[in-house]
């Protein structure tokens, strides 16, 4: 989208230049620029009926249905640090009613209207959970922004929902199912494991996780933890303050990733990472879900 807008600007610019040269070279390019700016195409958000507005101030975990309880702050911290280190925005939305929407549509509308992910990479993910209640079956859906469709194909989303999440959801353990899904989803989004690595053994998260640890070990032994060279070198043990089993794998995945946005560790260690809001990412209908 960004690329397209740039190209568009360029082509319009050229045409404007060609037109304007006749009356007077000096004065008019400025006006042409102004006119180009005036006529930039913009997309009106689709009618927002039924889809909730983002929390204010913006949060990544929007537990409107109140099913994550005391786990919500921990998941929020996890997703914020993931956003800080990889720029991939993963938002969790729980609602008690889909308002007649198909879950795919609901998750898509949230992603598109809230602008999850950044504008440049469209790297947002919406995890929608509607618990089983008086309003009907439980529904879970993972919607993937344009930029992550390659890393997280629909078939993978379906498996994550059906094999990793729903078994927990059936027992009413929403936070557990969500975390279990995130354990696969986040490394996939960060490009640390590929869809193929996850796919062959359905429910074989342990194998993937072991392979993942092995890769991390090898990489750190070889000493190229910051192979991408974009961020700070990951040096020394950091006390991440999460302290659960989650912290361990998160530390690993962060180390692997080398931190695209260097310097995020400071805010991470005191456990109050700030979230600057959604970045205007766009969605194209990718993703999959399941019900129980």
């Amino acid at each position: 989208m960004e690329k397209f807008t740039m190209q568009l600007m360029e082509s319009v610019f050229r045409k404007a230049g060609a037109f304007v040269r006749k009356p007077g070279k000096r004065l008019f390019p400025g006006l042409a620029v102004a006119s180009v700016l005036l006529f930039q195409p913009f997309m009106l958000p689709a009618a927002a009926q039924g889809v909730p507005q983002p929390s204010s101030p913006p949060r990544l975990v929007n537990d409107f249905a109140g099913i994550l309880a005391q786990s919500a702050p921990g998941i929020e911290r996890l997703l914020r640090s993931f956003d800080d280190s990889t720029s991939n925005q993963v938002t969790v939305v729980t609602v008690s009613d889909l308002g007649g929407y198909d879950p795919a549509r609901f998750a898509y509308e949230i992603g598109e209207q809230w602008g999850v992910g950044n504008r440049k990479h469209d790297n947002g993910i919406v995890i929608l959970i509607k618990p089983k209640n008086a309003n009907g079956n439980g529904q879970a859906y993972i919607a993937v922004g344009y930029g992550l469709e390659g890393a997280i194909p629909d078939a993978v989303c379906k498996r994550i929902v059906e094999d990793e999440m729903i078994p927990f959801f059936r027992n009413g353990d929403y936070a557990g199912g969500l975390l279990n899904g995130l354990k696969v989803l986040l490394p996939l989004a960060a490009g640390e494991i590929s869809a193929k690595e996850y796919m062959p053994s359905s429910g074989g998260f342990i194998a993937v996780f072991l392979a993942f640890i092995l890769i991390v070990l090898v990489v750190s032994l070889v000493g190229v933890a910051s192979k991408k060279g974009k961020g700070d070198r990951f040096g020394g043990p950091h006390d991440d303050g999460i302290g659960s089993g989650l912290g361990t794998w998160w530390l690993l995945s962060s180390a692997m990733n080398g931190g695209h946005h260097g310097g995020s560790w400071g805010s991470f260690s005191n456990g109050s990472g700030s979230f600057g809001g959604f970045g205007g990412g766009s969605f194209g209908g990718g993703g999959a879900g399941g019900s129980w």
Partner: protein
Amino acid sequence: MKKNVGCIVALLAVLAVVAVWFVKMYNGLVAKDEAVSSAWSQVENVYQRRMDLIPNLVNTVKGAAGFEQSTLQEVVAARAAATQVKVDPSQLSEENIARFQQAQDALGSSLSRLLVSVERYPDLKATQNFRDLQAQLEGTENRISVERQKFNTAVQSFNTAVRRFPRNIVAGMFGFEKKGYFEANEGAEAAPVVDFGTQE
């Protein structure tokens, strides 16, 4: 003399204003036209994506013992017909869009008939291969509805610009013509979501 100079300056100023106004109108139309072309290429992409899935689907389903061949042949024929209908991005007239949509919708409905008949083959439905295909097909249908909607939004913006005074004058001079929409016609409500009967 002085009066003449004043006249010329005033004339030039008016000309300049007209020129700027013209440029603004024209550029606005070009931008909207480009937005429509871009949205169209996305529409073509997602429909192509569906076409690319079909051979795999057909092969998977064909393997199932005693699967009725007529349903399969219908899908293959509809796919072939849809492949024939190509629309040039510079020719997005109402007739062309309607023709394209008709061919694709025919393919869509033959696909849903195929998927309905798969319901009678629980063994086939349970295979991992089919489950993956099912997820891909559902995702593709969702993408199609999203891109169609985005295309219609872009066309609406373009058509409004082309028809509204005074831009319609500029549009007429440079041959910008009204473009066609995707219609939400028969069964479109049901089509985007391929229901495989997973709900208990």
